[in-house]
């Protein structure tokens, strides 16, 4: 698949793949590759940046750490796991990609992801679009009121915020309250019709988590913990995330 032969740098001095193996259960099976190519033939990212999952794994195994940790392909693998699904040895290539992402200096990682992660870490809503607790509550209440009036059959519909001890805590992707609030309503209607006992929360309401895409473990954890705490503090039994 490569246009030119890959040059190997003398003695094997790999650290990257060894480190990754140490971190994964069963070493992620990373040294069990049969080089069959099933992963690459079914990977939609094959060919981008002259890379494919088998090649990525082989390069890591050959100790080509610099190439592995600098190729932008790491940001073009969607972590879809199809390669694991088809791999006879169940090799965890996306996990290897995840660690390759992590090897990038934080400020060199893609701006769009970095910015969204950092904004989400700024307040307890976890919104990557920076929507605050007040913003969210205002939009929800405003839209609800509008629909209760405009559609009489839904005059009694509710979209509770911070209601305690209900069954479902519902997350909401920031995109709706910020850019297309009407798109929140169909789900409210369905929940209303089935009589679901649910609530939004002002804290932790945003469904997205860009720190995960960023391979920022601490940020990822902080966001998940903030959201989990919000669900627990309200005493809800089930956390529904629509992402």
């Amino acid at each position, binding site marked *: 698949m490569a246009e030119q032969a890959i040059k190997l740098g003398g003695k094997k001095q790999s650290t990257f793949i060894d480190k990754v193996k140490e971190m994964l259960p069963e070493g992620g099976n990373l040294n069990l590759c049969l080089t069959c190519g099933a992963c690459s033939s079914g990977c939609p990212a094959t060919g981008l940046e002259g890379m494919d999952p088998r090649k990525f794994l082989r390069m890591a195994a050959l100790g080509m750490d610099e190439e592995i940790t600098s190729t932008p392909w790491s940001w*073009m693998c*969607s972590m*879809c796991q199809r390669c694991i699904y088809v791999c006879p040895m169940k090799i965890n290539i996306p996990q290897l990609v995840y660690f390759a992402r992590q090897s990038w200096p934080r400020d060199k990682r893609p701006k769009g992801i970095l910015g969204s992660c950092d904004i989400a870490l700024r307040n307890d809503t976890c919104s990557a679009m920076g929507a605050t607790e007040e913003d969210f509550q205002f939009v929800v209440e405003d839209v609800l009121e509008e629909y209760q009036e405009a559609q009489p059959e839904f005059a009694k519909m509710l979209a509770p915020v911070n209601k305690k001890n209900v069954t479902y805590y519902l997350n909401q992707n920031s995109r709706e309250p910020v850019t297309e609030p009407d798109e929140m309503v169909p*789900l409210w209607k369905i929940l209303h019709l089935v009589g679901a006992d649910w609530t939004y929360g002002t804290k932790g309401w945003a469904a997205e988590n860009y720190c995960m895409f*960023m391979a920022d473990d601490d940020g990822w954890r902080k966001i998940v913990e903030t959201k989990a705490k919000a669900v627990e503090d309200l005493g809800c039994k089930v956390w529904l995330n*629509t992402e």
Partner: protein
Amino acid sequence: MVRKSYGDPVAEDLRYVVKAIIGEENFVEMYPNRSNNFCCGGGGGFLQSGFPDQRREYGRIKAEQILATGAKYCITPCHNCHAQVHDLSDVRNHPWETVHIWTLLCLSLGILGPNERAYLGEDLKDVDVFHPESSNF
């Protein structure tokens, strides 16, 4: 959701829901499907990573799968998929519409209001299944 957490049984559950909403005869399966399906390329941060050309090239497989069905609507399960599949249609001059399942569910129940139809095509924009009070007209 299918490949990473709940497996094929949840794919069957969703097929039940979709067929109940739109009618079995209107459901077109894409190939490959279920756990063997291809990712659209919206996930993993790809949409925000600043590589739109590569992202659309990644999505070519998905676009061809959708086109091969001949279906006018593609239902997407999450925001990343919705944004990516919508964009894949956009750059091809809109051969299909991209919808959330809640839109079709409410449409079939006759409770989809006039402002909740942003992602419906012209053929369904004015369709009002049961309830005249939430009508466009």
